[in-house]
C-alpha cells in the first residue's frame, strides 16, 4: 500500500481488523476466512499489516497465525504493569533452543547435545508453557518420543516461522545442527549407551556406577 491509502478501509479490511481485534487467540488466515463466510482475506491482512506499521500496535504473523500486538519499541512503557514472566532455568532455555533449532528431536538427542541427562521435569515445564509438544515417535528401534515447538512458541518469541530463528542458517551451514553420531565421545561423556533412546521416564544409565576402576585411574591421572 502506498502512502495514499484510502482514509476509510473497505468492508473486508474492516471485518478482518475487527475479527482479529476481538479474537482471544491468534488466527490463521483460513480461520478468519471461515469466520467471515469464506472471504479471501490475504489481501486484507497485507493491507492491515501495512496500515499498522509505525503505529503503537502492529499486526504480525506467527507460525501462520495472525494477531495484533503492541509495538516492541514501547516495551518500556508497558512492561511495568505486567507481571514478569516465569523465569526459565538455564537447562530449560537450552533445551528449548535445542528443540527449536533441531526439531523434531528425541530426549536422547537433546541429552547428547547438552552432554548431561535432562530431567523429565524440564521438558514438562516447556510443555506446560505451551512452547513444546510431543510430535510423535521416531520410527527407529525403541520408537523414542520426539519433540517439536508449537505455534505459541513462535508467537511468544516473535517469530514468523522457525526459519527466523536467530542465526539458524549460519549454524546449519557450519554443520552444527546435524544429527549427532559420535559414539566414542558419547561413551566418554558418561551417557554411555547412545542407542538407549527408549522411554523418557526411565532413568538413563547412571553413569560411572560400575566404573570404580576407571574412576581411580582418573583420580591418579
Amino acid at each position: 500500500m502506498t502512502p495514499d491509502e484510502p482514509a476509510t478501509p473497505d468492508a473486508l479490511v474492516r471485518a478482518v481488523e475487527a475479527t482479529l481485534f476481538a479474537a482471544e487467540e491468534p488466527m490463521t488466515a483460513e480461520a478468519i476466512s471461515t469466520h467471515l463466510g469464506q472471504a479471501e482475506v490475504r489481501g486484507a491482512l497485507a493491507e492491515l499489516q501495512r496500515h499498522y506499521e509505525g503505529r503503537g500496535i502492529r499486526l504480525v504473523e506467527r507460525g501462520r497465525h495472525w494477531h495484533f500486538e503492541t509495538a516492541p519499541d514501547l516495551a518500556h512503557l508497558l512492561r511495568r504493569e505486567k507481571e514478569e514472566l516465569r523465569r526459565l532455568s538455564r537447562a530449560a532455555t537450552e533445551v528449548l533452543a535445542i528443540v527449536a533449532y533441531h526439531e523434531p528431536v528425541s530426549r536422547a538427542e537433546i541429552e547428547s547435545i547438552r552432554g548431561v541427562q535432562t530431567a523429565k521435569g524440564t521438558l514438562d515445564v516447556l510443555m506446560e508453557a505451551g512452547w513444546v509438544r510431543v510430535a510423535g515417535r521416531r520410527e527407529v528401534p525403541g520408537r523414542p518420543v520426539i519433540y517439536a515447538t508449537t505455534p505459541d512458541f513462535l508467537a511468544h518469541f516473535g517469530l514468523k516461522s522457525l526459519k527466523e530463528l536467530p542465526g539458524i542458517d549460519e549454524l546449519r551451514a557450519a554443520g552444527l545442527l546435524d544429527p549427532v553420531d559420535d559414539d566414542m565421545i558419547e561413551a566418554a561423556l558418561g551417557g554411555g549407551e547412545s542407542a538407549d533412546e527408549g522411554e523418557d521416564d526411565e532413568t538413563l544409565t547412571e553413569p560411572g556406577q560400575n566404573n570404580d576402576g576407571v574412576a581411580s585411574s582418573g583420580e591418579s591421572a
Partner: protein
Amino acid sequence: MDLLADTGFTSDAADPEWDGVAAAETRQEALYLEIEGWEGPLDLLLDLARRQKVDLRKISILELVDQYLTYIEQAGALRLELAADYLVMAAWLAYLKSALLLPKDEQEDPSPEELALRLQLRLQRLGAMREAAARLMGRDRLGRDVFPRGAPEGLRVERRNMWQCSWFDLIRAYGDVKVRSEPVVHMVRERMVMTLDSAIARVSSMLGISLDWMDLRDFLPPARDSWANPQLRRSALASSFVAALELARTGKAEIAQEETFGPLRLKAVRA
C-alpha cells in the same frame, strides 16, 4: 555438601536463570568449589574453552585437556567427591592427550586428531545452542515486551441446529402412529362382536327347535352381509362356545366331542 546452596547446584528443573558460571568466577580457589555448578563434564569443558578467549573453532584441544585434567586433579586434592562422569571424561581426555602426543605412525583409527575434532565440534554445538538460547530469551517476547490485546471481546461461534425431516418421514410417522394406536383407542368401539347374551339367546332358542345333536358351528348366524366378516365369525364362534358351556352348566344342554379337536356337538336336555 553445604557448598551446593552457595554455588546454585543445577538440578535441571529448579536452577535460576543462567547468568554464566564462567563470568562469575576468576579465582582458582573458587573454581574448585564449583564442580557442582557445571552441568556435567561437557559443560565444564565448554567453560574452560571459553576461558581461552578464542573462537571455539580455533581452540587448542591439548590446552583444554590440560586444563581439565588440572582442574580435576585440584578438585580431587581438595577431597571433593567428584562425580564419576567427570572422572570418566578425565580418563578419556588423558587417553586422547597421550594419543595426540604419540608419533603419527602408531595411531589407531579413528585418529586422535579426528577425536579431538569431534570433541571440538561437540563444544561448538553446545556453545551454539547456549548462545541461541540467550538470543531467544532476549527477543521481544509476547507478554514481556509486546502485548496482545488486554481485553478482547472474543469470538463466539454459536451452534444452531438445522433440523431436517422429509415429507415422507412425516407422513410415514403419522401412519405408524395410526397403526399403533388404533387397536388401543378404537378396538372396542369399532370391532364387531357377538355378545355373550345374544349368543346364549340364539343357541338356546335353536336348541329348543332341534331334537338331534347339532354341530356348534351350525349355531352361528349364516355367513352373509356383515356376518361374513371373519373376525365377527371368530367372535360368534367364541361366544357360542361360551354360551354352550353356560347352557350345559345350568343343565339346559349336553355337550359331546368324539375326539380332541373334533367337532363339538350340542343337544338340548329335555326336562
